[in-house]
């Protein structure tokens, strides 16, 4: 089981893991608040200033899975995997415009989740449930994928095992994570994010300087990579005509979906004010640059002569080959800790959503604040156990497919959330009908003969299923809003969206 273990790398790995474990438990006392209240446990009391939010959102959005998967796609087919860069460029102007409005209304009305806002805006329990259901459903496989990222680096350390034993290190890591998230809530990932992000920056800056230097410079890296793709259809250092449509729509659709996920909204709503959010929109692209450089590692793997059957092993193998053992251990620890932050925030976001938008309206409307926070803590455990079970009991491909579908589903709440920030013209019933159509169409399009597919051909152009489905969603919601003119008088005033106060 441990005969082939790389001991130097493993000792470094375990050392950093132990540090963040201590931080995770100590975090309960940081900026102390009453953790028996949901907005304290699940949003850190909305007290995170621009700096903390920067580390938290950076650690939350740029996940371990991303660090493995984006360069894996680049390694496999080249420039197409770079869609992650326009995707992350599109996100922040959008965040800059819309998220301060959401924060303001959430602070004013005490909203913890996106679905809270939906109910406040449209007074439609069905739509609230649809939004909550979508978020929880899409988050589960996303947490599972964080485990895939962790497992990849544990395997690269040389750990081997038979059957259930092969998942032992992962299980231990996840139990520890579950315990400190239960205890400290959002404070734990917020504090760990500092360690994670600094480690990732060190790892990436070292990698993009040292690895090309060893391989003869960037020119040589791209030359070798070009040869690796030469003569293969839809592979290469530029996009083929057939790839352009999917590339653009994947970027746009992924950007629309990202801030609909509960974990993204949890990160935004925990900020101390709209100014902190705008400042983050301007500065978070630093992480996008990091992601772009990580993506280039997929090309470096070719130049370094890395040949792996599963492209997701390309980066761990590249690090092992190019770096001394102790630094490879450091990089692997950075990736594994990189999985902990999003996994914790995702489980908290899903738990907040379940408690606020499923349990409270449909099971126990009289729930007390104490019961609310206790239920959310319990749910955060259940969500993580579920994700672990998915990884241990089902093929990894299952989690990958679900994650792909997760994005398609998440976009379907975009019209309700974002239109709702600007107008009350849309009716809840019409948006719910649009959601049903978009959710159904998106899932249908993804259903391929042999595997789930991310894109479909429409009118001769390839396009991301999520974008096709959300267009149908918007058309239906708009058309039906002319029919259902049920004028609901919510208690939200236009001024509630504007900057008024800040908790910092």
């Amino acid at each position: 089981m441990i005969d082939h273990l790389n001991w130097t790398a493993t000792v470094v790995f375990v050392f950093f893991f132990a540090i963040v474990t201590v931080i995770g438990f100590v975090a309960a006392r940081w900026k102390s608040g009453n953790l028996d209240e949901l907005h304290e446990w699940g949003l850190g009391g909305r007290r995170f200033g621009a700096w903390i939010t920067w580390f938290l959102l950076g650690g939350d959005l740029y996940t371990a899975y991303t660090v493995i998967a984006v360069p894996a796609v680049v390694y496999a087919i080249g420039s197409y995997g770079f869609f992650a860069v326009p995707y992350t460029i599109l996100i922040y102007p959008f965040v800059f415009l819309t998220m301060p409005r959401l924060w303001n209304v959430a602070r004013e009305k005490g909203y913890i989740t996106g679905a809270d806002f939906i109910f406040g805006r449209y007074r439609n329990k069905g739509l609230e449930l649809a939004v909550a259901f979508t978020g929880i459903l899409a988050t589960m496989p996303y947490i599972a994928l964080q485990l895939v990222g962790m497992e990849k680096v544990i395997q690269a350390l040389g750990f081997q095992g038979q059957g259930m034993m092969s998942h032992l290190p992962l299980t231990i890591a996840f139990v520890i994570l579950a315990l400190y998230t239960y205890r400290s809530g959002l404070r734990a990932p917020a504090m760990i994010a500092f360690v994670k992000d600094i480690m990732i920056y060190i790892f990436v800056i070292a990698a993009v300087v040292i690895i090309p230097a060893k391989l003869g410079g960037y020119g040589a890296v791209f030359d070798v990579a070009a040869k690796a793709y030469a003569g293969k259809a839809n592979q290469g250092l530029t996009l083929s005509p057939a790839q352009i449509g999917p590339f653009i729509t994947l970027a746009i659709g992924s950007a629309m979906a990202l801030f609909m996920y509960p974990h993204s909204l949890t990160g935004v709503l925990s900020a101390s004010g709209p100014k902190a959010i705008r400042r983050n929109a301007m500065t978070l692209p630093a992480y996008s640059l990091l992601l772009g450089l990580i993506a280039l590692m997929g090309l470096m793997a070719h130049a370094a002569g890395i040949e792996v059957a599963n492209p997701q092993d390309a980066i761990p193998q590249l690090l092992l080959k190019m770096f001394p053992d102790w630094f490879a251990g450091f990089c692997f620890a950075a990736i594994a800790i990189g999985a902990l932050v999003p996994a914790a925030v995702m489980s908290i976001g899903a738990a907040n959503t379940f408690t606020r938008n499923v349990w409270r309206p449909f099971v126990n409307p009289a729930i007390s604040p104490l019961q609310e926070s206790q239920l959310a803590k319990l749910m955060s455990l259940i969500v993580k156990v579920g994700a672990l079970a998915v990884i241990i009991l089902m093929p990894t491909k299952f989690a990958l497919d679900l994650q792909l579908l997760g994005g398609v589903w998440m976009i379907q709440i975009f019209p309700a959330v974002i239109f709702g920030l600007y107008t009350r013209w849309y009716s809840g019933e019409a948006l719910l009908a649009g959601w049903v159509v978009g959710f159904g169409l998106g899932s249908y399009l993804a259903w391929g003969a042999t595997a789930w597919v991310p894109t479909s051909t429409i009118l001769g152009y390839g396009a991301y299923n999520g974008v096709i489905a959300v267009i149908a969603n918007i058309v239906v919601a708009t058309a039906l809003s002319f029919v259902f003119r049920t004028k609901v008088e919510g208690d939200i005033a236009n001024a509630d969206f504007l900057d008024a106060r800040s908790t910092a």
Partner: protein
Amino acid sequence: MKYVLLIIPCVLSVWVPLYNSIEPTLAGIPFFFWFLLVLIPVSSIFMWAASRIGGDDA
């Protein structure tokens, strides 16, 4: 004006025909890659400009 500033980097990022080429390379890096990488900090500058002219409720 604020909206124009915010939309410019977005349009550039998905205007694929503009940057879908190897040449001109920069330090051995094909145009496709370095254009997108450079556009990231450029988008930050545009947001900063939007916040300067937009006031509090930008």
